[in-house]
């Protein structure tokens, strides 16, 4: 059976099947993935991880519902179920939105797709819709893997003494509601991109599309901490404020209620709204695509190449003025332009920055909600630790995002230029990279958190926290500069050296551990103004000591070499 399936899969099928196969493979293509085997491993691991979430549900919820089931409060039991159902809907929507946003460029064919596929005997519509349906199919697969195990596990867990509906009804209702929510998200994003694609001039579209993608990604990451808190929303889950009319997660929660026959008239209206919205975005995407796919292909081919000035003009102007010499400014501008223009690098920085912002927002809002600030400036306790952690946490995420991006080459084969012209540019590299770390990690982290620190703490405490975070950041930057000897984005992350999942996990784990330890130390040091001054003096001394030292063993920068390509000839030379 397996052999027959394998043989069928390896055989050539119709153009649509082959197009989907082609696009599906390319969906997972990335320089961060090392080889086809690694790719397969990553895909299977991710899908298995998604599917296994369903089997964690009983472990997470069994005790809770067992405890609630023992009590007499049926209403509390019901509200707990509602809160958890809303949580599933919201997390599914966020997960699918993150997937589609990550693969934003894979929704529709690009110039390269048309260049490769158009000369083949394929219709434009086949090229266009195959790409759209490939990502959609992946999204639906993820929804299925997420919804079906979760729904069946959850339905069995809540079927206790206060059970509101039989499991055989709960489960399909949850699956259908989740599918509706997922379809709405996938096609709402597709529709957004279709509209941008058709309404904007092509040269604006690329920029606008990248900006929308960035905003969406940061918004999704910022929404995750809020969503994680939803199972605790038993107090307000029954409320239906006016804004719920415009809150898609509540529409699909209402669909779930409607399917179980528990919806009141308002919920019914929300459910209808949800189904209509999913249908509208689906129909809208298909209709606009049907009408515009030929025009889209024509625009991609026929649009004249646009020349434009860099959007970093101001940053570049400033960078040129603060750089010490032509080589330093060359390295600095190269890194800035590459970080700005390379999608992969921008995405990495956005993910790190988004997670950092999300955590800081969550912590900041949490601090305000505790009410500790209402009694005057915060002086001690866990709330003070949380406030102290804000600039450090944001800095670490911005810093590690940059550091990780720097290790992924823009084009490894093009680094011959640096190898020939700047193998000895140790000092220039160090100064240029320092400026980037300061300008794009240290200063933004301090600027974003300093007003809040000064607002919620006593002035001397706020200044201490800012100085402490700034000096620790300088020490980390200098340590990093001393321990790396590569020009950013030119080398070092050869495919196959590290697994992307491991890298992400290690980085984030280190960030959390370091932030926790440093925050504890900071709190101890900030017990009174005298001790705080001594700590700052000590850190200033360390930072000053770290600045001028160069302990690079070799006088040359490091460049990784690619193995020589095998040269295959026609055999005309007798080889």
């Amino acid at each position, binding site marked *: 059976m397996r052999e027959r399936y394998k043989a069928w899969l390896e055989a050539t099928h119709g153009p649509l099947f082959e197009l989907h196969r082609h696009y599906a493979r390319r969906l997972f293509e990335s320089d961060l993935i090392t080889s086809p085997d690694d790719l397969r491993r990553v895909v299977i691991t991710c899908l298995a991880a998604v599917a296994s979430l369903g089997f964690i549900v009983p472990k997470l919820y069994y005790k809770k519902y067992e405890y609630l089931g023992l009590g007499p409060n049926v209403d509390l039991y019901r509200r707990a179920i509602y809160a958890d159902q809303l949580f599933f809907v919201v997390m599914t929507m966020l997960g699918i939105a993150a997937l589609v946003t990550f693969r934003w460029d894979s929704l529709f064919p690009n110039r390269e797709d048309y260049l490769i596929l158009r000369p083949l005997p394929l219709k434009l519509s086949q090229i266009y819709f195959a790409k759209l349906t490939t990502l959609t199919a992946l999204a639906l697969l993820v929804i299925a893997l997420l919804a079906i195990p979760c729904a069946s596990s959850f339905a069995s867990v809540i079927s206790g003494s206060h059970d509101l509906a039989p499991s055989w009804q709960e489960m399909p209702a949850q699956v259908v509601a989740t599918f509706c929510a997922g379809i709405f998200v996938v096609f709402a994003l597709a529709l957004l991109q279709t509209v941008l694609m058709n309404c904007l001039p092509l040269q604006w579209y690329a920029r606008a599309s990248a900006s929308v993608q960035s905003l969406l990604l940061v918004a999704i990451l910022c929404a995750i901490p809020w969503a994680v808190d939803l199972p605790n929303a038993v107090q307000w889950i029954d409320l239906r404020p006016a804004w719920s009319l415009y809150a898609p997660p509540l529409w699909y929660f209402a669909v779930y209620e409607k399917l179980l026959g528990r919806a009141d008239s308002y919920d019914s209206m929300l459910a209808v709204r949800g189904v209509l919205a999913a249908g509208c975005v689906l129909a809208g995407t298909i209709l606009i695509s049907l009408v515009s796919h030929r025009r889209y292909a024509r625009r991609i081919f026929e649009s004249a190449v646009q020349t434009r000035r860099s959007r970093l003009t101001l940053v570049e102007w400033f960078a040129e003025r603060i750089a010490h010499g032509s080589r330093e400014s060359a390295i600095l501008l190269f890194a800035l*332009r590459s970080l700005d223009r390379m999608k992969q690098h921008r995405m990495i920085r956005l993910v790190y920055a988004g997670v950092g912002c999300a955590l800081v927002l969550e912590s900041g809002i949490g601090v305000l909600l505790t009410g500790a600030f209402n009694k005057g400036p915060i002086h001690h306790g866990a709330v003070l630790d949380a406030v102290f952690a804000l600039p450090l946490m944001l800095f670490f995420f911005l810093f590690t995002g940059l550091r990780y991006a720097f290790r992924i080459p823009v084009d490894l084969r093009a680094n011959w230029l640096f190898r020939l012209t700047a193998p000895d540019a140790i000092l220039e590299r160090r100064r240029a990279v320092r400026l980037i770390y300061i300008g794009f990690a240290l200063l933004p982290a301090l600027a974003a958190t300093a007003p809040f620190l000064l607002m919620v703490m006593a002035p001397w405490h706020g200044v201490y926290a800012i100085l402490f975070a700034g000096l620790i950041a300088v020490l980390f930057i200098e340590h990093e500069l001393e321990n790396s000897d590569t020009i950013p984005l030119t080398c070092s992350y050869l495919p196959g050296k590290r697994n992307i999942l491991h890298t992400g996990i290690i980085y984030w784990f280190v960030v959390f551990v370091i932030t926790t330890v440093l925050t504890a130390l900071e709190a101890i040091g900030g017990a009174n103004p005298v001790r705080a001054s001594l700590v700052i003096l000590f850190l200033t001394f360390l930072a000053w000591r770290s600045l001028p030292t160069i302990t690079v063993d070799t006088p040359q920068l490091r460049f990784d070499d690619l193995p020589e390509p095998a040269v295959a000839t026609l*055999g*005309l030379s007798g080889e």
Partner: protein
Amino acid sequence: MLEARNLTKRYSSIAAVENVSFTIRPGQILGYLGPNGSGKSTTVKMLTGLIEPSEGEILYRGKNVLKNRLWFSRHFGYVPEEPHLYTHLTGREYLQLVGRLRGMEKSILERKIETMLDLFGLTDFRDTQMSSYSKGMRQKVLLSAALLHDPDVLILDEPFSGLDVTAALVFRTLLQALAAEGKMILYSSHVLEVVEKVCSEVLILHRSRVVANDSVARLRDLRSSSSLEDVFSQLVMHEDASAVASQMIAVMRG
């Protein structure tokens, strides 16, 4: 004078280049020829320092290049075989990057960039990212980058690849003018007609070894051939091209 002595490069036990020696004097253009896989690009990469030779030495003005890499890198310009460049940069930005990494003064650099882009007909595309450049346009940028700092040695690996007829003609004339000014030029190529017209001497590699190193005229005389192509065929081709072509057609129909 640039001199290679017994250059050898081995990958594991397989020799990519074996005992290659040659000399390029000021004003000389050395044509570096050979079939695919004969070791041309490997030699070029050893000269430029991108890979280390397993054996042998390279001398420039009597100094060992392998021990004075930085010094030598200031004296040569290089055009690689494949147009590997940072395509997310514009043509002007790329040339600025190269010039600045070579420590050129800004005003001189900007003037040179503007003029070179203008001479190569790239002015209209100077602020366009090179990802949308044609192969020929990228090659022009690479040629400009190699000439920016007025090097004494030019190491060119298939420099005319993708260039249009006009640009190729201009560049061919430029090479001869540079040689007349005393520059040393290594010209690695498959295009025998151009090599025959441009180069004063040629070196032919076959299976990693030198099989000929002499002036074009003398090689023609020695092999009693009318053209460099005939000489090349005699030295390196051991299969009947028409027989291979016939087999290809048979496969196509097959």
